């Protein structure tokens, strides 16, 4: 039996899929605020000295650990003359000149250089002043825009991330499909009721290549507090592949579909037998746990469910509403954890309002049992 998303009355009103945006849940490095470190810069008063000054300053103060920082920038307006095309050069970090009190209001260039100049001839340099420079290379366009307000940096743009952050990664037809999958998850959540604690969640596992739902599940915590919707869905996928540890027959909204014969190749193949090893299935193009699948879940998964998805080698996760102890963005970002052997993309906000409404009002704490 193959579950299909059902169109409900309220979803018809939002059929244009303009009511929601799927935003990527990025790593801390990609989403953190721009950290700044104080530094001294100085105007270049004689343009002809520019390349010599850069070379000498770089040799004395190489700014190790800040390879993204550009050494010079066009002069940012202000007084002091110098003309419209004049430049400012980064002399050193405040930490490079421990004897200089950065709270002072005027600095002598000599005080930033070792006695004898340290190989830097200060001709052509104006009076130094304090600036703040970005401590880390910007990884996203928003980070780059903030960083650039302080001091210019190199930026190797990941265009896909930029588009995703604008909420424009998915086309209209893709969004319509995504909405259908999340509606199936919402439908399951409603069918599951509270599931024994709080507003129950629902989940739908999707094979994105075949554009088909392979399993739908909801919280079944009344019977087993660990039967969160995601765990149920993972086991339903296993059952569809000839395995599975549980039976959810008494929950009509928890369903799984067997992989259609020959789904990945032209010649039909028999459904996998339990005795067949997973490696054999993979070689024959049969599904291996949740590899390559997308999970649509109404609520951000908890730590257990998020790590279960790592173990199951999920392809991507889409969730509607954040959860207070959520592990794919709120408390942890398990999908970006460097130490783990599997990482995946996560998007939040698919039918966000409908998913939040599942839990009653947004302020009501979600009980994870």
């Amino acid at each position, binding site marked *: 039996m193959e579950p299909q998303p059902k169109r409900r009355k309220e979803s018809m009103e939002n059929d244009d899929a303009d009511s929601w945006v799927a935003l990527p849940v990025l790593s801390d490095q990609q989403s953190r605020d721009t950290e700044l470190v104080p530094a001294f810069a100085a105007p270049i008063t004689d343009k002809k000295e520019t390349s010599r000054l850069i070379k000498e300053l770089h040799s004395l103060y190489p700014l190790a650990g800040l390879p993204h920082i550009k050494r010079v920038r066009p002069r940012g307006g202000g007084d002091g003359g110098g003309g419209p095309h004049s430049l400012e050069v980064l002399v050193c970090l405040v930490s490079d000149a421990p004897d200089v009190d950065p709270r002072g209001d005027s600095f002598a260039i000599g005080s930033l250089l070792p006695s004898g100049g340290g190989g830097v001839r200060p001709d052509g340099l104006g009076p130094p002043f304090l600036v703040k420079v970005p401590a880390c290379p910007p990884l996203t366009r928003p980070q780059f825009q903030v960083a650039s307000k302080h001091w210019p940096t190199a930026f190797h743009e990941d265009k896909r991330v930029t588009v995703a952050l604008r909420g424009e990664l998915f086309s209209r037809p893709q969004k319509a499909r995504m909405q259908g999958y999340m509606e199936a998850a919402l439908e399951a959540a409603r069918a599951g009721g509270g599931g024994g604690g709080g507003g129950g969640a629902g989940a739908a596992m999707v094979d994105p290549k075949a554009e088909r739902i392979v399993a739908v599940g909801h919280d079944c915590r009344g019977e*087993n*507090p660990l039967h969160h919707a995601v765990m149920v869905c993972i086991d339903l996928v296993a059952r569809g592949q000839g395995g599975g540890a549980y039976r959810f027959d008494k929950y009509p909204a928890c369903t799984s579909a067997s992989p259609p014969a020959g789904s990945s190749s032209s010649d039909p193949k028999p459904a996998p037998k339990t005795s067949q090893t997973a490696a054999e299935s993979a070689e024959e193009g049969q599904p291996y746990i949740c590899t390559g699948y997308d999970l649509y879940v109404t609520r951000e998964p908890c730590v257990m469910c998020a790590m279960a998805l790592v173990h199951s080698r999920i392809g991507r996760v889409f969730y509607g509403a954040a959860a207070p102890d959520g592990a794919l963005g709120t408390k942890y970002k398990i999908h970006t954890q460097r130490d783990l052997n599997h990482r995946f993309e996560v998007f939040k906000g698919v039918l966000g309002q409908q998913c939040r409404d599942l839990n009653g009002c947004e302020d009501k704490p979600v009980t994870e049992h």
Partner: protein
Amino acid sequence: MGTESEIPGAGLQPVFHPTDEDIEKWMSRAFEMAQDALQNGEVPVGCLLVHGGQVVGQGRNQVNQTRNATRHAEMVALDQLLEWCRHGNVDPHSVCLRTVLYVTVEPCVMCAAALRLLNIPVVVYGCGNERFGGCGSVLDVSSAQLPHTGTAFKCVAGYRAQEAVEMLKAFYKQENPNAPKPKTRKD
């Protein structure tokens, strides 16, 4: 002798604690299970849930058998505990509050969260789990501030750790025929 030591005032302590004798006894059992698993080509992890001197759950990894990658030994054992409660018509919550998990390897992030969700107060384990460990190796789920994810638990780590590591090494030297071809790790 049992895990529920009747020390006067024990009820005032936030968690009860297994005695050294308990640890030695139950961990030996866990190691025997792990050894048995290794000899049968399974992930060498042994685990026992002990309540009032009685084993109420024990498990071995069932990932390949069930095609469900979440069927770690701990998850199997926790299901047995719940079944034991259902069978005996006792409240799982009150049982879990006085149950110790003995396991040869640090529980993974998922299992650590599951242990929290069921309010297991103490976990005794052998070696750390650098790949997946949820009690400090990868994440510290055991003690994290997660008010909606059950309760934090106490860990007693390092019992016969070297032995547990050697068993894992022996296992990972053999190739796992069920794993997909590894992709090169991108950074």
